[in-house]
């Protein structure tokens, strides 16, 4: 059963990812992204990370893709980029080489990681069924407010900057309104 779920969601993710690149129409590409993100959410559920799955759907598949669609609509759906022109000659073969290298690195990492996990265990402290349905969320919260509390607080500064930046770059000042 778990294998079946994995194959289905992996197919969703891959089809979506290929769709993002292959689709000519930007709206279709953005919708393909939804498929990929939803597939990842299914994988999270299969790993019993229900909270992360919900966040994945709400934040990524919901908010972020909607934001993408807004931007695409604002810029105009009908604009078509000519993909034939290559600003840097020879970048495509190089890109193929680089991505093959990256695939090799990832496969090595997974294989070696597997070997190490077999030797020493994953070292992860996963909640089991008797901890109750909220165990994941509780563990996440403890992690955020203990080990990563500084990171959490710095993120709030980051969000303030984003807001300030939006205001700064879009406001019509008296000087620009002239």
């Amino acid at each position, binding site marked *: 059963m778990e294998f079946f779920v994995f194959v289905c969601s992996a197919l969703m993710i891959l089809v979506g990812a290929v769709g993002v690149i292959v689709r000519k129409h930007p709206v279709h590409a953005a919708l393909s992204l939804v498929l990929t993100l939803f597939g990842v959410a299914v994988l999270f559920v299969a790993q019993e990370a229900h909270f992360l799955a919900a966040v994945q759907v709400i934040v990524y598949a919901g908010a972020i893709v909607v934001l993408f669609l807004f931007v695409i609509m604002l810029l105009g759906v009908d604009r078509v980029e000519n993909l034939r022109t290559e600003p840097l000659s020879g970048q495509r073969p190089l890109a193929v080489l680089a991505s093959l290298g990256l695939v090799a690195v990832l496969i090595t990492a997974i294989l070696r990681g597997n070997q190490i996990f077999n030797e020493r265990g994953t070292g992860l402290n996963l909640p089991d069924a008797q*901890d109750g349905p909220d165990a994941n969320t509780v563990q996440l919260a403890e992690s955020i407010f203990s080990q990563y509390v*500084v990171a959490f607080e710095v993120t709030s500064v980051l969000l303030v*900057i984003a807001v*300030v930046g939006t205001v700064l770059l879009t406001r019509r000042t008296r000087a620009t309104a002239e």
Partner: protein
Amino acid sequence: MNDLSNFFGPAVDWLAISPLLSLLAGALTLLLVGSLTGQWPWRLYAHLTALSAVIAIAISIRLWGDVGTNGARLLIGGALALDQFALFAAIAICLAIALVSYLTSDYLNREGVDLPEIYALYLTAGIGALVMIASNDLVVLFLGLETLGLSLYLLAASNRRQVSSQEAGLKYFILGGFASAFFLYGVALVYGVTGSTRLINLNAALTSYIPVPRNDAVLLIGIGMILIGFAFKVSLVPFQAWTPDVYQGAPTPTTAFVASVGKIAALVALVRVFVVAFPSRSDDWGTIVFVLSALTLVVGSVVAVVQTNVKRMLAYSSISHAGFILVGLEAASHRASANVDDGLVGVAVYVVLYAAMVVGTFGVVTVVTSDQANSDASGSASLDSFKGLAKSQPLLGLAMTVLLLAQAGMPLTSGFVAKFGVIQAAVAVGSYELAVIAMVCAVIAAFVYLRIMVSMWLADPSDSTTVKVPPLSRISIAVAVAVTLVTGFLPSLILDLGSNLAELASK
């Protein structure tokens, strides 16, 4: 159900993070009160910014004594480090914020738009920088990097009336985002290998955990990607392409800020990550740093010579300065040598002195290019605008001369102390090739500064307009020149401080 009543967060040493809080309080006050009230009189935006920076400096000095007696330690569950290496850089960063905010005040008032947001962004950038230099965790470091980076992109694009500023902001944003992606990927790979993002744990894991040192391709690729991310941020050759365009296009006070705060933070964080987390692989990254440093020195110095725009010239000179600082990091990679700590001290002293020099230099450029007649269409400074400056404004010309001599590394200026520190460190660990390259490049780079000086002293003023120096800019430039001269004449002032600098927090 899990019981949360027995959950205790990590202990927080509030005094130790007060420099951060001071900057944050300043930024939030500016944003909140600034948005509710109209234009503030008497340049209060700049004064408030400088005040929070000065408070942060005062607290840092207080902490300096504390660390001197109690030793370096980790804060908030090991996320941040408190040591003199970080405090030293923190003081320089806050000083740069104060000086740049005064320069900006004059600049913005001349342009007719004095906005609180700009100053708030200086302060948030400062928060990012302080987090970066003290971070003992790769995730925290990344967030600091982004906090600093986002503020800098916005500042670079903040002059909305100039296309070149928009272009600089966009270029900086795209390349900076690219670099952040590299950095994050490297962090992910390193985390995958070691199972931790805390620098201290990384070192422990790498020395005890990974049994076969030559079978760690994933780890080395991760380290390489982290290094690439940093190399973009500090503009090391061959990752320097954005630097001249951004330095030229951004408003000049912002350029001063990018060159000082942005560079110090990234360099100090780079040194901390590699020295604290990856000392066990120092043979591997030492070689890469050697090559990067040599390339950066040569390209930065040689290309600077052929520029005609002063801001581009100084951009390339800042690239070559980064090369000098890497000489210190290279020295710190020779772990077999007894003098390995000299490199760390050299780096710390260099970044602090460099901050004062570069803020002062760009301060003069800001003042000189204030005259609209002197700037070309894109609002940037050509070498011609400095013609005869020493004759029409002797004091300003003298200040610029001192600052340029310091950048060139003349004895009796702070630049000499800085350059001597890193080159001496390289010699002490037996890295003679790099020391020779650095010295040759110092001579080549001196020619650049000489060109500006010749233009200032020997040429006649091109037209009758005289440059006016606004009062706040006068303070900034005077402080920068004073730091440059005092540490140049009395290097012991700063070198005696450095005895504990190499003790990085690890507990």
